[in-house]
């Protein structure tokens, strides 16, 4: 089959799965998940075919796979939409296909396929467990199947469609379409258990916060289009003339060039989608969704989409940056580096196993954004891909842990124990060995454990780039964030898996079924292996053994192939020290952790601990300065005062005045004068009628005859005068 055709077809199976499941197979769980996983498998297959064809093409960046059709009329030209696979999208397609497929398979086990229906389960609430009798008549509490099982697979199908659409697009408009479809799916899936008030709040928060970013992005698209007349990647980002024009043209706004203003507007879209400061608040709350959704949002799709987009528009962001960083890049490096550190500090103070990972995602995305900000194009893309693998692994691993803990909770029947709180865990390595080993791999990759893990190579490249180009502040910030990352990761691993079980529930935890552990193993392979494609050429000893394929391949997306940064020992030493040091410190501080002891971080930070613990109170702050005033503005000011008060008040006043004028006319003119005259006339007539009859109506015929005669004579005279006498 022609490669272009396959690319067109890649997003379709999950979309079809969505429609088939919602319209036809909602009643059959087995059929629904077979269709969904089958669809993911087809898309995966297509992606792999395209990927392997792509890497065989020489100078693929110059000759990508493209195909397009006319779609939207804008003025006198048609907007064309189409697909394009160039090195960047081929690499993205690779990680998206793998993570999506693994998440789909995992979901089967996570939603307890094959388990009995729950005793009191309701759609819109997580399953509460079922009671079964064994052969001896003993009653057991076991996990129960998700009541809206089929709906879940329909929604993640749509989600995958959104991401595939985004990746295969050849222009920013269809990218935006996929982007918003994912926004919708995150809304639906974060609020999948919409019976919970917290889930309802989180779903709206996620959608609205990202939409704030989206609107700026939309404006950026409008501006870009009005300047260039196209939104096609190649016509803008692979076209030196256009880029030069945009960089030279002044936007008339704060002295920015058109390229800078467009870049910043588009970047705000990423700030929302990839949860960068200050729009990061939605991502931790998004943990309300089922865990496969968290993995979907955090690794495979949504937040990766934000970073993918800025990588995609990098030529625009860096347009005109021959000597100094452009304003857009400066903004990115500041926001990215700050977010990386800021979120890492919060992660240290969280107890919920998924929330730690959520803040770690924000922090790692900050890494990528900062990397782009300092111009480390390939490194940012590299970290995007390795991060997707190990973060998907970590999320799915944490879901497996929660699942195991829920098993314990059902066993003891003590529902006050939160199966997500790491304080209640401990010693799970014996109960859940596969989960433990894979989680360890993922955690070490996140921490950047030297040489073996993928995270090391991608993170190291960012640090090397920052050092090599003299961005020492960014370098320092990111190194510190890396230290904290290693620390909280080891804290998490220690509290969850090491030591002794701290609760009865943890003692009765259970390894999860193969549908959940199989994806963990596959992802663990990538969490290690994905790094080996990008080993710098001049790395001591092993450098050059494997060619730095990733740099060569993805670098080809740009018009000018980016130079690989020269090797320097300082960033290497730094990344070794922060990774190993952080891991060791985390183990040291938490190896003897028990519920009765104060958290080591709390002890160390003292009075400041409550700041990261409460996420620096950003939720409360936003509530005060944005949400409450906005509600007041809508309800009290605009609706009650302005609309009902002023505008309608004015109308009613006009009506009242008109009424008063009418009454005045009636009382002052109508009644006394007009009516008065008429009444007077009537009265006179009446009076005449009373007075005259006795005189003329005598009843005598002769008198009547005389009166008739006289009248006749009088009228005749009058007519004669009028008609004959007057000319």
């Amino acid at each position, binding site marked *: 089959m022609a490669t272009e055709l396959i690319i067109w077809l890649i997003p379709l199976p999950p979309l079809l799965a969505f429609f088939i499941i919602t319209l036809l197979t909602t009643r059959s769980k087995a059929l629904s998940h077979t269709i969904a996983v089958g669809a993911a498998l087809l898309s995966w297959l297509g992606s792999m075919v395209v990927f392997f064809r792509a890497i065989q093409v020489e100078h693929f960046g110059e000759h990508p796979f493209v195909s397009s059709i006319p779609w939207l009329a804008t003025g006198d030209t048609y907007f064309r939409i189409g697909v394009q696979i160039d090195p960047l999208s081929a690499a993205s397609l690779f990680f998206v296909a793998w993570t999506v497929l693994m998440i789909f398979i995992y979901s089967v086990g996570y939603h307890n396929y094959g388990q009995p229906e729950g005793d009191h389960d309701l759609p819109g609430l997580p399953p509460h467990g079922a009671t079964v009798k064994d052969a001896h008549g003993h009653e057991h509490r076991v996990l129960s199947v998700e009541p809206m099982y089929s709906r879940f697979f329909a929604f993640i199908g749509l989600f995958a469609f959104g991401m595939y659409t985004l990746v295969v697009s050849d222009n920013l408009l269809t990218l935006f379409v996929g982007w918003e*479809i994912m926004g919708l799916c995150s809304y639906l899936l974060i609020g999948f258990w919409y019976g919970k008030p917290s889930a309802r709040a989180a779903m709206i928060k996620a959608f609205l916060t990202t939409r704030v970013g989206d609107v700026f992005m939309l404006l950026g698209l409008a501006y870009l289009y009005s300047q260039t007349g196209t939104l096609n990647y190649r016509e803008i980002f692979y076209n030196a003339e256009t880029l030069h024009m945009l960089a030279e043209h002044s936007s008339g706004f704060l002295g920015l060039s058109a390229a800078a203003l467009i870049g910043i507007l588009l970047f705000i879209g990423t700030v929302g989608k990839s949860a960068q400061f200050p729009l990061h608040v939605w991502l931790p709350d998004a943990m309300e969704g089922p865990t496969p959704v968290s993995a979907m949002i955090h690794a495979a799709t949504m937040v990766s989409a934000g970073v993918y987009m800025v990588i995609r528009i990098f030529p625009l962001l860096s347009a005109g940056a021959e000597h100094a960083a452009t304003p857009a890049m400066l903004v990115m490096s500041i926001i990215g580096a700050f977010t990386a550190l800021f979120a890492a500090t919060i992660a240290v103070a969280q107890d919920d196993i998924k929330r730690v990972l959520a803040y770690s995602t924000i922090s790692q995305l900050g890494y990528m954004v900062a990397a782009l900000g300092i111009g480390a194009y390939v490194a940012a893309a590299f970290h995007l891909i390795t991060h997707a693998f190990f973060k998907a692994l970590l999320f799915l691993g944490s879901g497996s842990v929660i699942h195991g803990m829920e098993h314990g909770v059902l066993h003891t029947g003590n529902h006050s124990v939160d199966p997500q709180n790491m304080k209640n865990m401990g010693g799970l390595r014996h109960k859940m060995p596969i989960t433990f080993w894979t989680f360890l791999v993922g955690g070490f990759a996140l921490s950047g454990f030297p040489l073996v893990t993928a995270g090391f190579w991608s993170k190291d490249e960012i640090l090397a780039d920052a050092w090599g180009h003299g961005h020492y502040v960014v370098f320092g910030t990111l190194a510190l964030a890396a230290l904290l990352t290693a620390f909280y990761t080891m804290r998490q691993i220690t509290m969850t898996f090491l030591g002794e079980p701290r609760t009865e529930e943890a003692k009765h935890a259970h390894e999860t079924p193969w549908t959940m552990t199989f994806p963990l193993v596959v992802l663990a392979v990538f969490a290690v292996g994905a790094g080996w494609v990008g080993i710098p050429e001049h790395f001591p000893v092993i450098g050059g053994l494997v060619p730095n394929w990733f740099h060569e391949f993805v670098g080809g997306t740009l018009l000018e192939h980016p130079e690989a940064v020269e090797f320097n020992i300082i960033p290497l030493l730094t990344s070794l020290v922060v990774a190993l040091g952080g891991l060791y410190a985390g183990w040291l501080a938490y190896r003897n952790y028990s519920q009765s002891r104060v958290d080591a971080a709390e002890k160390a930070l003292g009075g400041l601990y409550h700041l990261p613990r409460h996420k620096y109170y950003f939720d409360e702050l936003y509530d005060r300065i944005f949400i409450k005033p906005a509600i007041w503005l809508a309800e009290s000011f605009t609706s009650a005062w302005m609309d009902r008060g002023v505008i309608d008040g004015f109308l009613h006043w006009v009506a009242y005045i008109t009424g008063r004028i009418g009454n005045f006319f009636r009382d002052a003119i109508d009644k006394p004068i007009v009516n008065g005259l008429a009444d007077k006339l009537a009265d006179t007539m009446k009076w005449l009628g009373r007075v005259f009859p006795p005189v003329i109506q005598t009843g005598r015929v002769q008198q009547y005859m005389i009166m008739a005669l006289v009248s006749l004579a009088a009228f005749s005279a009058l007519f004669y005068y009028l008609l004959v006498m007057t000319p």
Partner: protein
Amino acid sequence: MNFLLYPLTMVTFFPLLGVLVLLFLKPEQKNAARWTALITSLITFGISIAVLAQFDRTNPDLQLVINLPWIQVAGWNIAFHMGVDGLSILLVLLTTFLTPISILSTWTAVEDRVKDFMLFFLLLEVGMVGVFVSLDLFLFYIFWEFTLVPMYFLIGIWGGPNRMYAAIKFFLYTMAGSILMLLAVLWLGIQGGTFSVPELVAQDNIPANLQTWLFLAFAAAFAIKVPMWPLHSWLPDAHVEAPTAGSVILAGVLLKMGTYGFLRFNLPLFPQAAVQLAPLMGVLAVIGIIYGAAVSYAQQDVKKLVAYSSVSHLGFVMLGLFALNPQGIQGGILQMINHGLSTGALFLIVGMIYERRHTRDMDAFGGLWKIMPVYGALTLIVTLSSMGLPGLNGFVGEFTILLGAWEAGQVGGPFGSYWYAGLAAIGVILAAVYMLYMFQKVFLGPVDKDENRSLKDLNWREIVTLAPLLVFIFWIGLYPRPFFELMAPSVDKLVQILQTAALAIR
């Protein structure tokens, strides 16, 4: 009689045949009345499709023109002059498309005086189509005023508890604006020696300062109809009190008569005034966008929420039209259609739940998705379409308008500032806010009201009522090209007039 066989007279006056049949029915023959109206409106729709088939989409000029002398006294040249072009063809189709849907929605909702209801409804259709195809100012004015009468009765007889207030407010408010327009129409007709719009446009000899006054006189009528802020306050009352079908037509078509008026009369007849007043109209449009959205959020009554959202959406349309460039105007026209489809569907949806529960208070619901899954899913799609989710119709319109508004914001453009597009974009965020809160309050969460537990999901008739709207919501969202193609040549022609005028000013 020959003139009745022209396509455009057919599509305009065919509903009168249904009216004639209805007159012979007895009041208790309710179903007969319903079927008569439905079949009549379906045939009318069929005729409008025939009109579309004869329409040449590459031709920018008026087509299928009928021009017969009508009233010719004392130098007044009033003609029976009709025609369609890219600016009006879609609106004609929208009207004939929404009418049968509205009639179908009344099947069980209207039980009282069915015959009279259908009679007024068909008369209303005559007026609406007439407005969109008239090319003679006088004829236009007659149709324009004529639509008021059936709508007045629809609200006043079949409306809610406060219907008289709403009906009178609607009537007087619209009337008041029309008077100024009538003066301008008379001035134009006498001064120019013809009431024919294309001829007046061709004359192009109105001095700039007079243009401004005439523009404002016409704008008074149209701005009230749209409605533009701050002349909108009749709308929520009329909507809340009107029966469902009335609301659908009111939002779907009657409001478009206002925006269409700007497009057909204000822009080509007074192009210099349009260029000069574009910033003013843009500011009012942007205020309307944000204001309507803010007030929507504050509503408890779902129908009122939808009504105020119209103020916001129509603000988008006006912003697009007064961007005075191809993108803006095409987006504006498409958004008129989109608003008719999405808001029409929303009013149908509100009507369906009102028929079941006899309340529209959001607090009376909760968790409906569990009880009525089909209803919930369809509502979600329409909600998303209304808030402009890509892949559905609203996005295409909003995005094209934003493109136009941004372009108009460049130095030397009609707006001259990016703030117009920038602030309008806030409306996109706010639309998501009030729509999602509505969806959350009504459809998500626990079912905590016992009255809601036994609600029945949609029946086949209701699904059939909504289905055609959904088809177009997806069609326009996924492949809008055919719709743009219909309007593009005529819009380009209009933009040329405006550009010439803009050059003349400088």
